[in-house]
């Protein structure tokens, strides 16, 4: 079974801090994704990566950056946290050996609920 592990379930940080959210998958998936989930807005894609050191912006990349130094690990970075970044953050991965965008289901971690005070 695919396992996507997010390092923290709950995190509280202060405005202006640099925040790191970590995600690890154990199934050699090529694609990894970071979403934020807000009530009434569903999931919105922040960034995704289709290979090591490769990244592409999603729908709401402003205020975020990502890092993928190893295939199994994808980090989301809030450069200077702000209160409007308080949210649930979900990491996901899927296989996709045929190109950047796969039709395989995405496998999700359990999320990190981040509060910025």
């Amino acid at each position, binding site marked *: 079974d695919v396992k996507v592990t997010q390092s923290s379930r709950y995190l509280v940080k202060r405005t202006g801090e640099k925040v790191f959210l970590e995600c690890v998958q154990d199934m050699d998936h090529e694609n990894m994704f970071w979403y934020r989930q807000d009530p009434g807005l*569903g*999931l919105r894609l922040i960034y995704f990566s289709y290979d090591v050191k490769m990244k592409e912006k999603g729908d709401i990349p402003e205020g975020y950056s990502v890092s993928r130094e190893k295939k199994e690990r994808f980090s989301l970075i809030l450069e200077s946290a702000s209160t409007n970044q308080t949210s649930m953050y979900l990491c996901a991965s899927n296989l996709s050996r045929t190109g*950047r965008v796969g039709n395989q*289901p*995405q496998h999700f971690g359990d999320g990190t609920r981040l509060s910025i005070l």
Partner: protein
Amino acid sequence: AQSVAQPEDQVNVAEGNPLTVKCTYSVSGNPYLFWYVQYPNRGLQFLLKYITGDNLVKGSYGFEAEFNKSQTSFHLKKPSALVSDSALYFCAVRSPGSARQLTFGSGTQLTVLP
């Protein structure tokens, strides 16, 4: 552009009754469509997908969905609801001709009443 709409924020149904969670989409060309479920304090779990072929797709936990091209819909259904089906359901779409990833709907909270 691709988009998906879930017109109902909340659906309530009695245990044992059939349930439907609605989804409509907008893409260029033929869509790839997905349903996911989220239980409290958990990530999303894949239920089923439509890529091509039969319009009726069967998935996990007794759920099925019907692809209707003329109505641009992909409604999720189950013949007999269980209390344990209570969760948040998300529809998602992708256009195969696009480099974009999945676009998710806003979610529908399903409550099955005992």
